[in-house]
C-alpha cells in the first residue's frame, strides 16, 4: 500500500506539471514570508519584554531643582494610578550610565566629568495595562505640568499599541498567504483530478475503493505542503545567515516554531486537497 501510495502520489505530482511546481513555489514563498513574519514577531516580542522592564516615561529635571521639590514631585508621580514605581537618577548617576554606554568611546564623555551636562531625571515605570500610546501620552502630559522645574518629559514610542498592531498585521498577512496557499494547493489537486479523470474513471470501473483513488490525491496535498514549507524554511535560513552576519544579536526561528510551520503547512495541504478530492474525484 505504501509503495502504491508513493508511486501514485509522484505520478499525480508529475501529472500536475506546471501547476504542481507553481503550488510548490507558492507554498515556499508563503513559508518564507511567514518565517520572516515569525522572525519579526519574535524580535518585537523581545522588545515588548524589554519595554516592560525599561522605563516608559523619563522626566528630565532642571539643574536648580531643590531636593525637597524633587522628592515632592516623585511622591506626586508615584500617587498616579498607572504608575508602578518612580526611580530618581541624579546627574552623577546619569554620567556614570553614559560612561557605561559609551564604554568603547570613553573619550567622548571624558570631559563631562568637569562640567556634567546630563540632567537629573525621574524614571517612571508604568503598570502593564498603561503601556498604550494614548495612556502614555496623557500621563506624560499630566506629569509635564506638575512642576515648573521639569525640563522635558519623554515617553516610549514603541508601545504595546504598536506591538498589537504589528501582531495583527503579521497575523493578517500570514492568514492571507495561508489562504492563498490553500487555494493553490486545492487548484493543483483539482487539475490533477482533471488530468487523470480517465484513469480515475477506469480505476473506479475495475473496483477501486474510494480510499484507493482518494488517498494519493490527499497525500499529494500533504506532500506539497510539507515539501514547500521545508524548502521555504531552508531558503529563509540561508537568507538569514547571509544577511545577519552584521546583526549577530538576531537569532533564527527556534526549532519548535520551525517544526510548527512545517506541520501547519502539511495539515493545510492535506485539508486543501480533501474538498476537491471529494467533489471532483467522486470519492
Amino acid at each position, binding site marked *: *500500500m505504501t509503495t*502504491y501510495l508513493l508511486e501514485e502520489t509522484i*505520478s499525480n505530482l508529475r501529472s500536475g506539471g506546471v501547476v504542481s511546481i507553481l503550488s510548490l513555489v507558492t507554498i515556499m514563498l508563503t513559508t518564507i514570508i511567514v518565517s520572516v513574519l515569525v522572525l519579526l514577531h519574535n524580535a518585537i516580542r523581545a522588545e515588548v519584554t524589554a519595554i516592560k522592564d525599561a522605563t516608559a516615561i523619563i522626566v528630565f529635571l532642571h539643574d536648580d531643582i531643590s531636593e525637597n521639590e524633587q522628592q515632592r514631585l516623585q511622591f506626586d508621580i508615584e500617587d498616579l494610578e498607572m504608575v508602578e514605581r518612580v526611580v530618581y537618577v541624579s546627574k552623577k548617576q546619569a554620567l556614570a550610565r553614559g560612561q557605561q554606554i559609551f564604554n568603547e568611546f570613553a573619550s567622548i564623555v571624558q570631559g563631562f566629568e568637569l562640567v556634567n551636562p546630563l540632567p537629573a531625571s525621574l524614571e517612571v515605570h508604568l503598570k502593564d495595562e498603561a503601556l498604550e500610546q494614548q495612556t502614555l501620552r496623557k500621563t506624560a502630559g499630566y506629569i509635564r505640568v506638575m512642576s515648573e522645574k521639569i525640563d522635558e518629559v519623554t515617553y516610549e514610542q514603541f508601545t504595546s499599541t504598536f506591538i498589537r498592531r504589528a501582531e495583527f498585521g503579521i497575523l493578517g498577512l500570514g492568514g492571507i498567504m495561508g489562504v492563498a496557499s490553500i487555494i493553490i494547493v486545492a487548484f493543483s489537486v483539482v487539475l490533477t483530478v482533471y488530468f487523470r479523470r*480517465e*484513469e480515475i*474513471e*477506469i*480505476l*473506479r*470501473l*475495475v*473496483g*477501486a*475503493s*474510494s480510499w*484507493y483513488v482518494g488517498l494519493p490525491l490527499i497525500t499529494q496535498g500533504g506532500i506539497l505542503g510539507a515539501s514547500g514549507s521545508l524548502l521555504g524554511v531552508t531558503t529563509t535560513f540561508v537568507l538569514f545567515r547571509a544577511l545577519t552576519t552584521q546583526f549577530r544579536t538576531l537569532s533564527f526561528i527556534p526549532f519548535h516554531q520551525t517544526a510548527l510551520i512545517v506541520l501547519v503547512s502539511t495539515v493545510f495541504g492535506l485539508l486543501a486537497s480533501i474538498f476537491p478530492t471529494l467533489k471532483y474525484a467522486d470519492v
Partner: protein
Amino acid sequence: MGVNQSWTNKSFSVVGVYIVHLTPAALYFRLSLRPKFKDQSTMIQAYNVNMCYKEDIQVLHDVSFQVQKGEFTFLVGESGAGKTTILRLLYRGLVPTNGELVVAGRNLSTLSKSEIPHFRRQIGVVFQDFKLLSNKTVQENVAISMKVMGIRRSEIRNNVNQLLHQMSLVHRRDAYPEEISGGEQQRVAIARAMANNPTILLADEPTGNLDPKLSLEIMRLFENFNFRGTTVLVATHDIALVRQLGRRVIRIQEGQSIEV
C-alpha cells in the same frame, strides 16, 4: 335494514380486499411474479427496468430478462437500441429510473456507494473503447484490477504472466497501448477484465473495430472463459458472428427486450 345492507357491503368489500391482496394464495401468486433474488442459479435478473436520460429521453422500457449462471448470452440490437445502457446498469455505472436489477446475487437498487467497488470486483467489463491507461504498459494495464484489490505483487506478477501468455501478448508486455494494434488492445482489455476471475464478464461491442477473423478469435476467448464457469454477456450488433456461435440471444429493440 339499509344500515345492515351498508354494513354487509362494507364487510364484503373488506373480505374482498383480503381475498385479492392478503390471502396466502394471493401473496404466493404475487410473490411468484417477483424475481427470485436469492436464486443462486440466476446470475443476472432484470425486472421491468426503465431508464430515462434527462427526464424525457427514455432509453429502456420495462426491460426484463434473466441470464443463468454459466450461460453465454448475446445482447443484440441496432446502434442506440440501449445495449450499452443495459451493460452500464449491470456494472452499476448507471442507476435505473425504476425497476430492479439483481446481479451476482446483489440487488443493485439497495447497493450503497461504499459497496460498489466490492461488487465491481466480481464483474469483468470489456469496454467498447477498451479504456486502457495510455501512460501504463500492457502488463501494468492488466495488473491494475488486481492492484486495486490489494493482491501481493508476486501474485500479480504470476497472474499477469499467465494472462499475457493466454492472450498471446507476452512479447508486448512492455509496450504502451498506442504502440499496439486494435486487436491487441482488445486482448489487453479482456485480460484486465478476466484478471480477477470474475463471476460475470460483460463485453460491449468487443469486436466492433476488428476484422471477422480477429472477431472470431476474441469470441473463442470468451467461450474459453465461459467453459471455465464465467457467465458471459456480450453486447454486439454483429449478427453474423452471433449466428456463427449459435448461443442464446436477447434482442433489444426500441428499448424493449425480446427473447430470441
